[in-house]
């Protein structure tokens, strides 16, 4: 199968800054693909390379098998939902959504009908006559989505589209985006710095750092089997364990990662397991997060709500199943 988007050794340098550095990537048709990373990690530049706003310094980008080099944004069958939505302030919602058809010379009646349908798709029927300034953040986001979908793109690019929304709205939009993507069958490429968002929505996730992809995989892979310390740390604040520690429990001198929820905390100090002292407790609602000091090694453990909690300063014993301890690659 031809990949929807493929990067072959793609680099984009700005002066001496390597925003994207020799990235290889394949995104499959119909996939919900997330690019996850801290700000400045190159994920947005990758998105702009696909959209055609940036040209690679080296390497090749193919969109459904076609070389993208030299193809301007307006001739790519790819549309973008911008981070700031970029709705045209001088046009009403209907004309904003119909813009892509208007510049293609589609007649007024026909394009307005299509725009109405697109608005209904994002659950904003009847909002056509309003100006973007009269809409809430969540509504603007939907208009931007409808506008990007009206040209029936093969790939939809979303640049941190939920970043400006409040938590409640973000959660419902995550769900809606996922449903929309499944029903339309369009390839979604989604940029985010929120690991929770990436894990909950994407079919596959690429973790970016300093212009490179650190790991690509399903959310389960990324979460449970981080390949490097960076991934373990960035995706879900895992406990990163040094080789000395890992050798004692797994017999191999490698870096390891252990999820906070995999650690069991026993209140009797003399028991078997890793001896640690409770430094602090953070109440999270569904669980309580313990900060622990195990002989100089700082660890985190989560205790589900309802379980008995130790006091700060108390000595505890930590145990975990050997298979929960994930070994990272050599030299990671």
């Amino acid at each position: 199968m031809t990949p929807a988007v493929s990067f072959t050794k793609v680099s984009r340098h700005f002066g001496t800054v390597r925003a994207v550095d020799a990235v290889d990537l394949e995104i499959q048709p119909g996939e919900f693909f997330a690019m996850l990373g801290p700000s400045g990690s190159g994920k947005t530049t990758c998105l702009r390379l696909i959209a055609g706003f940036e040209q690679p310094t080296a390497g090749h980008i193919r969109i459904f098998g076609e070389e993208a080099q030299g193809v301007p944004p307006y001739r790519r069958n790819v549309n973008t939902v911008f981070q700031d939505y970029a709705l045209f302030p001088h046009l009403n919602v209907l004309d904003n959504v119909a813009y892509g058809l208007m510049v293609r010379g589609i007649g007024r009646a026909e394009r307005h009908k299509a725009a109405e349908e697109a608005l209904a798709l994002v659950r904003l029927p009847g909002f056509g006559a309003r100006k973007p300034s009269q809409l809430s953040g969540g509504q603007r986001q939907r208009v931007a989505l409808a506008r990007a979908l009206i040209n029936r793109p093969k790939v939809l690019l979303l640049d941190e589209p939920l970043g400006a929304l409040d938590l409640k709205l973000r959660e419902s939009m995550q769900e809606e985006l996922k449903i929309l993507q499944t029903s339309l069958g369009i390839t979604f490429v989604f940029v985010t710095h929120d690991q929770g968002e990436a894990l909950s929505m994407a079919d596959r996730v690429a973790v970016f750092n300093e212009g490179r992809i650190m790991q690509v995989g399903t959310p389960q892979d990324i979460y449970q089997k981080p390949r490097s310390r960076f991934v373990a740390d960035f995706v879900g604040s895992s406990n990163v364990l040094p080789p000395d520690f890992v050798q004692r429990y797994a017999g191999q001198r490698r870096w390891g990662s252990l999820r906070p929820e995999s650690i069991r905390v026993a209140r009797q100090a003399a028991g078997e397991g890793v001896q640690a002292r409770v430094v602090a407790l953070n109440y999270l609602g569904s669980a309580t997060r313990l900060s622990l000091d195990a002989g100089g090694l700082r660890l985190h453990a989560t205790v589900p709500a309802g379980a008995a909690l130790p006091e700060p300063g108390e000595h505890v014993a930590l145990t975990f199943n050997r298979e929960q301890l994930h070994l990272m690659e050599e030299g990671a």
Partner: protein
Amino acid sequence: MRSDRSTSAPLALKLAAAAGLLFLHLPILLIFVYAFTTEEKTYQWPPPGFTLRWLAVTWNRPDVWQALSLSVKVAALSTVIAIVLGTLCAAAVSRTRFFGRETISLLVILPIALPGIITGIALRSAFSLMEIPFSTWTIVLGHATFCVVVVYNNAVARFRRTSGSLIEASMDLGADGFQTFRHVVLPNIGTALLAGGMLAFALSFDEVIVTTFTAGQQQTVPIWMLEELVRPRQRPVTNVVAMIVVLVTALPILVSYYLTRDSDQIAGAGK
């Protein structure tokens, strides 16, 4: 911050404010009054009588018409040049980053900070060095130097307020460069250009200093008026023309003021 209590200003302050306003505007009113006086040689107060005769006299003076038409022509041409060059320059400076960007921005704004007399002398010596004879175009060139600034400043301010991603969004949706300019850029900067253009027109219309150096024997309205004041013949004609100049220049400035004031909300509504 506006206080909730609607306390009125003290009487002394009110009087001072009124005196200030009178000082500024009474002379202008006097000019209007003398346009209708029956006395033609001196400015006698109070005017011995009122007449509408001078309107007709002015209408029939060919030198007035010549000066007016030259002024309108020059103002219109400099405005068109200013709009084209000012917009292009503003787009370049605010949309892209290149070596010397700040310098170019400064150089474009400089002519309005520079005393007109310097601009005038510089242009005049340049024209004579290059042996360019004085014509409408030499005046237009002189006026364009400061008209460009006005349009540039307006356009740059608007470009800065318009989100850059609008242009990318337009391209992304399938519009080429020309379509993007027509459907997205122009509607967003249109009022700024209109305001800048009107201001440029008004500035050009009553410019004296640069014009004296670049006009040669030609007379624009302000130059004609200066000449006219020296000769005590049909003096009220000058006042009639002054009245027209006030109307021609004040109206566009007022309109441009209202246009930019309203458009603040339009331009800021992007997000």
